[in-house]
């Protein structure tokens, strides 16, 4: 039912993947509550459990403020769980009163089938995996960034009540690791990291030895250098049955970014116009959309150039 989907297309603000200061993070969520035309806001730490304590004290007021603003609030959880204290935190998140986004299968074990969201770090690439997680309590699946349109189409089609979410703006996380590359690049280790990831609110640039921008280091994760942008593809995604459209927080004016995507979803802005307005907000970071087209991930396929 594409038309119905069109009317109800939800815009979401994914979890903040970078390490911003507690104040910056709090103010960002206050702005999300007050000004951002998003339906859902994912809070919680996905990348590194060492970052968690910094924001712990601010979380309750942030959650209250977002809920008061009518937002659905989701607690995103760690993408790679290894330490006993991380297992404990996963259990606590699963037992708490908020909707949980599971990003490591550990979370599914802790949830015991209670309603939840499957995050992009749990591989749901096919209908077999999709149907299994849906049967076991998932009501929404955020697809992996690598999923091409051909897969999204199959997964969003005949999904029944299951909601499907796709990342449409922000750096794409390409890998997660145990070792902290952000610390390593600064001559430190994960245990002695001094939270150097906090120095780079949009991640640490890594170029090739010949000087081309290629990757972004963000703590234990590695991201695309470019922003994944699926503006021209919003219509197609809606028609496929995608219900939720995720914006990943970057150190740019996310209120304006959200407004552009909302207006495009609502048909108030043509994708080309929206892109022309988005570019100045995000310079000099390039755009990528190769995964969507099943091509080289870092490529930008500009099929819609006027």
């Amino acid at each position, binding site marked *: 039912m594409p038309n119905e989907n069109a009317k109800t297309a939800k815009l979401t603000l994914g979890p903040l993947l970078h390490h911003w200061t507690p104040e910056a993070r709090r103010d960002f969520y206050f702005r999300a509550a007050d000004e951002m035309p998003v339906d859902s806001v994912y809070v919680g730490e996905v990348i590194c459990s060492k970052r968690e304590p910094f924001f712990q004290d601010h979380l309750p007021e942030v959650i209250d403020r977002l809920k008061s603003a009518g937002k659905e609030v989701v607690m995103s959880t760690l993408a790679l769980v290894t330490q006993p204290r991380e297992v404990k935190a996963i259990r606590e998140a699963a037992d708490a009163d908020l909707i949980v986004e599971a990003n490591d299968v550990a979370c599914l074990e802790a949830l015991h089938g209670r309603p939840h969201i499957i995050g992009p770090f749990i591989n749901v*690439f096919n209908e077999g995996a999709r149907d299994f997680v849906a049967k076991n309590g998932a009501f929404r699946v955020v697809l992996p*960034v690598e999923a091409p349109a051909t897969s999204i189409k199959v997964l969003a089609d005949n999904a029944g009540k299951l909601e499907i979410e796709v990342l449409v703006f922000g750096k794409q996380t390409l890998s997660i690791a145990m070792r902290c590359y952000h610390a390593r690049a600064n001559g430190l280790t994960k245990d002695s990291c001094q939270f150097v990831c906090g120095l780079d609110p949009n991640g640490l640039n890594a170029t090739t*030895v010949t000087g081309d921008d290629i990757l972004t280091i963000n703590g234990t994760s590695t991201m695309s250098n470019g922003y994944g942008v699926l503006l021209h593809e919003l219509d197609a995604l809606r028609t496929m049955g995608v219900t939720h459209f995720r914006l990943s927080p970057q150190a740019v004016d996310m209120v304006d970014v959200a407004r552009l995507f909302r207006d495009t979803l609502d048909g108030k802005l043509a994708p080309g116009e929206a892109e022309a307005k988005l570019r100045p907000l995000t310079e000099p970071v390039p755009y990528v959309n190769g995964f969507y087209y099943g091509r080289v*991930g870092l490529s930008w396929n500009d099929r819609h150039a006027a």
Partner: protein
Amino acid sequence: MTHHSLELLSPAGNPAALRAAIEAGADAVYCGFADRTNARNYPGLNFDVDEMVEGVAFAHSKGAKVLVAINTFPPAGEMKSWKDAIDNAAMAGADAVILADIGVLDYAANKHPNLRRHLSVQASAANPLSINYYRDQFGVKRVVLPRILSVDEVAHVAKETGMEIEVFGYGSVGPMSEGRCFLSSYMTGLSPTSEGACAPASHVTYKEEGDFVLSCLGDVVLNRVAKGEGAAYPTPCKARYVACGKAGYIFEEPIALNALDILPELKKAGVTALKIEGRQRSKAYVAEVVSAFRKALDAVETGETRSTDDLSDLSEGGRQTFGAYKKGWR
């Protein structure tokens, strides 16, 4: 006493390597079908169905086991190849299948409940809760742990789960959470998760630049070395990048994992099986590494102290490491 010893598990990239591994003393081999259903989908490697049937028969005649890796993630609408692979592994009499995808695990558990299921490293299960999930939902009997845990962490997982634990003993160091790494497809468009080929040779080029050689994956330069220095194979996680103004191996050096000297510690940690990596390697390589590990494992069993074989000539970059085992990656 045999059942208490560590199982030595060897790669078998083709039928010749399977025989060589078993003759060199492997307790079991793992292999895959010649398609994208396994994570080493490279030209000229792997088994067709007849070869699998013959391979299993040969292994069983020597008292060895065959584990079939069907450990990639099927794209939506294309699960048939993976289902066929499981049906064929069962038909061939394989001792177990090594799986990663939730949809594939679900199929195998329902269709072939008596076919033993192991959890592939590609599932990236690195803690007791995750492992219990796969045990509870799909009846998985053994888990292959990611190469990111220290010996103490391995011991903790073994104790908490009571599962059979398989770890890597020799091969490359895998710094990323495997099965969830999209670096290679970011550069080539071909996905290791669904196509089973990380940094495929078809996308690798070397370009001369004065006194240097650039190694590239797709259009991305992954290293620059002096001519004659010998460049390591360009994979995205063993490449040289520039960050914080310095060029370096920001993820991991080109270096080989070698656990030959810590076998007693791994055994004490509760490890069941020791995996040697390298289905893409020659049968001579496989025979040499398996022999070295066979001797070392036998020495561990008899309590004999002896010096272990030197495998450094076979190692990536000629250098070796204990990886995460000793200190972890903290």
